[in-house]
């Protein structure tokens, strides 16, 4: 007799119910049913907003990037072949949109057409100490490549596990682990020595 069989049956039933609900959501979005698209937005906007907010730090183009993320999801939702993977796919699409935005800025920054923009925190962070902390962190994050910035923020601000990082970045676990180690090393050098044991 296999250990844990009753628990496995229960989990299977829960998973099946969730899977069929997600399949209906996917089908409705594909049909461009506006009511279902509204539900889709309501279901995932919290996560999408949080990812963009954390990765870019309350950026002026935040709403644009959220909109483009959802627009891409609606356009390409037919790619989701396993409904249970929808949440991971939503994260991956959002992360990809943010990475594109970061890459574009890094390119334009070479020509001096984008300023640092850290003063965007000034109006809503009242505490001087927190303001200095957040500006210092995002100043360093701005120096990292999109991939290193993404793994660092998703891991340390959003608490993603390694497997979740790999899924969001559409890379292997080994690559995510390597990027994270490199990101932490660079962050330590540019911000200050990093507390040990954070990769486990």
């Amino acid at each position: 007799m296999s250990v844990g069989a009753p628990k496995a049956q229960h989990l299977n039933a829960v998973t099946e119910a969730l899977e069929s609900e997600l399949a209906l959501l996917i089908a409705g979005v594909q049909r461009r049913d506006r009511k279902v698209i509204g539900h889709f937005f309501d279901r995932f906007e919290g996560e999408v907003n949080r990812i963009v907010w954390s990765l870019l730090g309350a950026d002026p183009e935040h709403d644009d990037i959220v909109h483009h993320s959802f627009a891409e999801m609606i356009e390409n939702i037919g790619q989701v072949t396993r409904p249970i993977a929808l949440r991971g796919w939503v994260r991956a699409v959002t992360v990809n949109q943010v990475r594109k935005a970061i890459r574009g800025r890094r390119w334009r920054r070479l020509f001096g057409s984008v300023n640092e923009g850290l003063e965007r925190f000034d109006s809503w962070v009242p505490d001087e100490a927190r303001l200095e902390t957040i500006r210092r962190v995002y100043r360093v994050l701005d120096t990292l490549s999109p991939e290193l910035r993404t793994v660092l923020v998703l891991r340390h601000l959003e608490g993603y596990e390694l497997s979740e990082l790999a899924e969001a970045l559409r890379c292997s676990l080994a690559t995510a682990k390597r990027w994270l180690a490199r990101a932490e090393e660079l962050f330590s050098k540019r911000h200050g020595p990093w507390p040990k044991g954070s990769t486990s």
Partner: protein
Amino acid sequence: MTAENPFPKVRETLGDGPGDAHRQMQRSRLLQATALSPAPRRDRRWLFWPAMAIAFAAVLVVMWPKPKPRPAGVAVGTEFSAPSTAPVTLTFADESHVTLLPGGLAQLEASDDTHVDVRLTSGHLDAKVTKHTGRVWRYLAGPYAVRVTGTELSVSWHPGLSALEVAVQEGAVEVTGPGLSAPVAVRAGERLRRSPAVTEAKAAPPPAEDVPIAEAAPATVQVKPHVAAKLAEAKTDVEVTKPAPAPPDWHALLASGNRKEALAAAETSGVLTRPELLASPELLRLADAARIEGHPRAENLLTRCVARGGDEGAEAAFLLGKLHQDRGEIAQAVGAFRDAIRLDPGTYDELASGRLLELLVQLNDPSARDLAREYLRKHPDGPWAAAAKKVVGER
């Protein structure tokens, strides 16, 4: 000296994101954009004869005199603006409509039997123009004019950067303006973007009046080759993205999540039968795609990757274990999970040990009890802790 970890404070300061008003605006904007974009096509061949009857009726309708396309109560010269939280839609008597997205500013400059001119002062508008009315619509943005006779399109104009973007969903439009020696046709599915060079943008003066500046134009631009050629002739700073090359690249297909197509392209290029040509990270990604799609080469590719060792080898071993487990090949799965733990104990000790425990119990292997004790010692709150406790307590 080790500095304090700044991330908890940043997390607390940032909060969860923008406020409710922003989220409502995002929702409205998305639904509005969805209303103007077509749903995927379906097979409509059964509609042929009804469509012919409708077409005949449409000919009669076209011949019928049309009312002037002016929204009720809107005089020529009227300016209209959309607030920052919601779009504004104008519907004309001939069912054409113009939707100004939040923050946009526009003006009805002309309207009579032969033409309609709408000036987009700043921001973004989506428009649908009823066909076969005999009227020409023009959307004016700065020095540019977008000429339309019956189509769905979007126009964005950022006056501070002199940046124009035109996207056509249905029909075709013509764009004229400075630097374009001849009208440029933009057809359904195409976009045109026009902006001066970056250095010129730096020197551009700020807007003279305090008008709401709409969101920046989207980053993705695609222009078909014939448009690219005309723009190149004009010798202006126009951003053009050319279509991807025809032969499918399995790397790009895999990166965009198209696993089936990526595997087909990899098979055509020969790498599936020559994995030694691939670096370990590439081999791992291809092998995992093959595993998910049930491709017959999956086991071979994963095994090759395991043999190379390292982080990729460890992950390949874990995935190979899952492959065997899904097939019911218990003994092979046990071997693969053990390889994963051996190659990278830091990452796979918890992930693989739990699965290993399950399999050893199925095999009635006596080493299951020792593994269960070890699991509980290292991962007392892990996902398989309950199962491990049962194993230890059973005997």
